[in-house]
C-alpha cells in the first residue's frame, strides 16, 4: 500500500464507514512489523492499540475529531501505563503514572496511541543518533539520518509507519527532521501548546508540535493540542483558533520577507536556489516578497547553547540515582557533556559571563524580530542549511546539532512559531522551507504554507522505499 492516507482522508473514510479504526491500526501495526527493522522509528508499540480501535468501532456516532485515528508519539511525552524512555537507558523500564496534557488531549479527541518513537536521548541532538536504542534511518535513503531530535516521528510518517506523529522542538527538533524527511513539521509559539508531561529539555524553549504529511493535517492536530493548560503556567491565556479555517485563504496581499541572512555563505547553492524559487511561487500567488534584513542567525548559536545547556543541567538533576531504577552512569556521553557545560555556565562567577549574557542577547533577538515583523507579515528561509547527512558523519562533532539547527534557533530563543514544508530535493534528499512569523501567528503560517503546498507537488513525493513495496 502506498502512503496514500492522510489524517484528513483517514478521518473522512472512518466517518463514511469505509474503513474501521481497527483496519487502520492493523495496517500500521503491519507496516511497523515490516519496516521498523529498517528504520528503527518506533521504540515501543502500544500493545493495547488494536483493542482500543476495536472498542471504537462500536461508537459510530461519536463526534470526536480524531476518533479512531492511530498516532505516533515521540518517546519524550509521558504516556500513562506505556513505557516512556526519552531514548535513554536510564529510563529503560519507566512506566509513567500520568499522561502528558498533549497525549490526554489527543486521546480525549479519540486518537489511539500507536507507539512511541525514537529520538536523540533526552532530545539532545539533531540526527537521532544519540539515542541509546540506535539511530533512526531516513526513509529517503537508509544511509542518512532522519534529523532530530524528533527523528523517529518524522521517519515514521515519511516511511508510512504512521499517518501522523507528535514531536517536540527546542530548536529545530520538529522542523529539522520534517525537512530532512520531506514532510510538514509545525513548531507552535512557546506557550501555545502545553509542556506538562513532556520530559523537559530546555524549559524556556520546549514546544510540542505535529509532524504530518501535509499542512491540513498539521492544522487538524494543532486544533486539538493548542490552548491554555492549568497545569502549565507558561501556556498562554489567549484562546486558540480553528486553524483549518486558514487553509484556503491564499496569500494575496501578504508581505513576505525572504530572510537573506538565513542564506548562509557556506550553504549549498542548490538549497539556496530552491528557497529563492519559493519566493517566485509566492509572488505568483499574489504575495509581495522582498528581501528582509535580520540579525545573523549564527549569533543565536551561543545564546541557544548556553540557555539550553543551563536548563538541561537543572532539568536532569532529578535523575539522581535514587529513583527510576537506574543511576546517573546511565547518562550517555552527550547528556553528560550538556550537564557539565550547563552546570559550569550557571556557576557563581560564570553566570554573568554566560547565562545572563545569553539572556541579554536573547532579548536583542526578540526585539529585532518585533521590528522585522512590523514590516513583514512573515519570513521565509531554508529550514536546514543542507540535506540530511550520512549516518556517522556527526560523530565527534559535539556542536553538530547547534550548527545544523542554526536557522531555527533564532525563532526558538524568541519563542516564535514556524513551519517546515517540503520545497524540493538535493541529491535525492528532501529540502524544507521554513515559514516563520510573530507570536501566535500559527493561523497565518498555516495559511501561507497551505497556499504554497497547493501550488506545488513536493509533498506528494514519497520515498522509493515505499514505492517499491
Amino acid at each position, binding site marked *: 500500500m502506498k502512503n496514500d492516507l492522510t489524517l484528513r482522508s483517514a478521518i473522512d473514510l472512518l466517518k463514511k464507514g469505509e474503513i474501521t479504526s481497527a483496519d487502520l491500526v492493523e495496517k500500521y501495526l503491519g507496516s511497523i512489523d515490516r519496516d521498523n527493522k529498517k528504520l528503527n522509528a518506533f521504540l515501543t508499540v502500544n500493545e493495547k492499540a488494536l483493542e482500543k480501535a476495536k472498542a471504537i468501532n462500536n461508537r459510530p456516532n461519536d463526534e470526536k475529531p480524531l476518533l479512531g485515528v492511530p498516532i505516533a508519539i515521540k518517546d519524550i511525552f*509521558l504516556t500513562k501505563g506505556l513505557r516512556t524512555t526519552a531514548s535513554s537507558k536510564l529510563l529503560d523500564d519507566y512506566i509513567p503514572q500520568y499522561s502528558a496534557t498533549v497525549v490526554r488531549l489527543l486521546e480525549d479527541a479519540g486518537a489511539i496511541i500507536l507507539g512511541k518513537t525514537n529520538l536523540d536521548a533526552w532530545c539532545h541532538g539533531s540526527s537521532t543518533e544519540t539515542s541509546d536504542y540506535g539511530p533512526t534511518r531516513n526513509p529517503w535513503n537508509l544511509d542518512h539520518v532522519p534529523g532530530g531530535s524528533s527523528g523517529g516521528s518524522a521517519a515514521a510518517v515519511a516511511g508510512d509507519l504512521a499517518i501522523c506523529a507528535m514531536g517536540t522542538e527546542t530548536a529545530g527538533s520538529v522542523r529539522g527532521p520534517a525537512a530532512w524527511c520531506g514532510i510538514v513539521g509545525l513548531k507552535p509559539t512557546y506557550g501555545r501548546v502545553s509542556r*506538562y508531561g513532556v520530559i*523537559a529539555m530546555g524549559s524556556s524553549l520546549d514546544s510540542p508540535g505535529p509532524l504530518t504529511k501535509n499542512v491540513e493535517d498539521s492544522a487538524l492536530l494543532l486544533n486539538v493540542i493548542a490552548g491554555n493548560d*492549568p497545569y*502549565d*503556567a507558561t501556556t498562554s491565556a489567549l484562546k486558540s483558533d480553528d486553524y483549518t479555517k486558514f487553509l484556503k485563504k491564499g496569500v494575496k496581499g501578504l508581505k513576505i520577507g525572504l530572510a537573506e541572512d538565513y542564506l548562509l555563505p557556506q550553504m549549498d547553492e542548490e538549497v539556496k536556489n530552491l528557497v529563492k524559487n519559493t519566493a517566485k511561487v509566492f509572488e505568483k500567488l499574489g504575495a509581495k516578497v522582498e528581501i528582509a534584513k535580520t540579525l545573523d542567525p549564527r549569533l543565536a548559536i551561543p545564546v541557544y547553547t548556553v540557555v539550553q545547556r543551563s536548563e538541561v543541567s*537543572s532539568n536532569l538533576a*532529578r535523575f539522581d540515582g*535514587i529513583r527510576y531504577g537506574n543511576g546517573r552512569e546511565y547518562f550517555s556521553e552527550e547528556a553528560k557533556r550538556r550537564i557539565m557545560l550547563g552546570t559550569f555556565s550557571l556557576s557563581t562567577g560564570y553566570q554573568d559571563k554566560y547565562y545572563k549574557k545569553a539572556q541579554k542577547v536573547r532579548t536583542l533577538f526578540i526585539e529585532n524580530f518585533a521590528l522585522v515583523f512590523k514590516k513583514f507579515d512573515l519570513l521565509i528561509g531554508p529550514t536546514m542549511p543542507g540535506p540530511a547527512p550520512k549516518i556517522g558523519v556527526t560523530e565527534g562533532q559535539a556542536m553538530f546539532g547547534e550548527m545544523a539547527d542554526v536557522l531555527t534557533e533564532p525563532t526558538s530563543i524568541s519563542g516564535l512559531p514556524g513551519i517546515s514544508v517540503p520545497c524540493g530535493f538535493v541529491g535525492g534528499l528532501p529540502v524544507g522551507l521554513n515559514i516563520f512569523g510573530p507570536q501566535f501567528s500559527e493561523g497565518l503560517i498555516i495559511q501561507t504554507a497551505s497556499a504554497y503546498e497547493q501550488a506545488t507537488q513536493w509533498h506528494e513525493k514519497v520515498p522509493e522505499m515505499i514505492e517499491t513495496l
Partner: protein
Amino acid sequence: MVPTVGMETHVELRTNSKMFCGCPADHFGKKPNTQTCPVCLGLPGALPVPNKKAIEWTIMIALSLNCKINKESKFDRKHYFYPDLPKGYQISQYDEPISVDGYLDTTFGRVGIERIHIEEDTGKLQHKKINGLRPGEPSGSESENVSLVDFNRSGVPLVEIVTKPDIHSGSQAKEFEQKLQQVLRYIAVSDCDMEKGSMRLEANISWGFDWGYKVEVKNLNSFKFVDKAINYELERQKKVLEEGDIPSQETRGWSETENKTTPQRYKETAADYRYFPEPDIPPMEFSEDFINSIKNRIPELPFTKLEKFINKFKIRSTYAEILVSQKETAMMAEKVLEESVKAGMNPDLVAGILVNQKIDLKKISPKTLLDMVKKKGSSLSVNEGSIKLWVNEALRQMPQAVVDFKNGKLNALSALVGLVMQLSKGKADPKLTKKLLEDMLK
C-alpha cells in the same frame, strides 16, 4: 565587640493546597506518601503552578512586618542534591524576593527585616530499623537501618523571614521570635507550631563582622532554646576570641540534653546553588490595587492592640502583654474592657481578674463576667486605680461638697468618702479613699 545575631525563620503556610500543586498542604501526622502527585514528587514532565493564596499571604506577612513589596518578583531554582529534594532543586526566590526592608520592634530595640520570600518545603527523611522483611528477602534476615523518604511535606508553602543582624542578645532574639509568632498567628497564615515544625528557627551568631566568621545554629525548636543557645554560643565564641583565635565558621546544633551547641556534620564547602530564574513560572507583577486589597484584609495586629489596651483602657502593660498574646483572647478581652468602661468599672481591675484567674472568655459572656465581678466584689481586692475612678465620680456628683471642703468645711470630706463607699459597694478602703480625696482636692 558587639554580640551580633541575625535570625532566619521558616514558616509553613496553612493554605489548603501545596505551593505548586493541588495536594493538601496539611501534612502533619498523615500516612507517608499519601499526599503526593507528579508535581510534588518531581516526576519527569511535571510543572509547577504557583498557589495564588500563598503569594497573597506572603505579601500579607510582609506588610504586617512593615516591609516594602517588590512590584516585580520571580521564582528561582536553587540546586543541591539531597534525597528529600525530588527535583534536584528547590523552587525558591533569589534576587527578587516578594519583599524587603521591614522591621519588628522589641523592647530591646528595633529589629530590621532584611527580606521575606516564598519557597517550597522539602520532603522528610525517616531513618528506621526494619526487620529484614522487604519483598524478596527471606524472613529472619538481620534487621537493618534504612532511610525512607516521605514526600507529604514536599512542596508545602514555606515563607522565609530573614532579619538584619540587629539582635544583640538571646533574650532579644527570643522576644523577636515570640512577637513574630504572635503576628503570624494574628493574620492566621500559619499555625507557627514549633513542635510540628511549622515554625523553624535558625540563628547566625558572631561578635561582629570584623572577625570574618559567623556560626549558624540550627535545631532551635523552642523560644527558650533560642535564648539559651545564643547566650551559650556568644560565651563560647568570646572565650575563643579571648584566646586569640577566630571561631570557625560552621553550623552547630543545640543539644537539649547537654545544654550546649555542638558542631553538626554539614559539609562546609561554600555551597554553589547555581540559582537561575525558574523558567516554568512566568515572573510576577503586583499592582498597587492588589497590594492594597491585601493590606485592607490585615486585622489589628498585636502591637496596635497592646497600645490600645495600655493607652485607651489604661491597663498595666504586664496585663496587656498577656491579653494580646493571642488574637482570640485579645479580641474577647477588648469587648470585656469596653463593657467594663460602660459599666463604670475599672478596666485594669477587670484585666487583672482575666489574667490572674485565667478566665476562659470562650465560656463566658462579657456581661455575665462583669456581673460576677460586681457580685463577688467584696472578695476581690480593689486597687488604687479603681478607687481613683470612684473618687472622680464622687467629685463629679457632689460639686457642692468640693466647694465646701475648699472653704474649710472639713466634714464635707466625710460625705465624699461616704459616696465612694457607696459607689464601690463597700469595697473601697476608707483610709485610702480619704487620702486620695485629700490629694485630689489639694
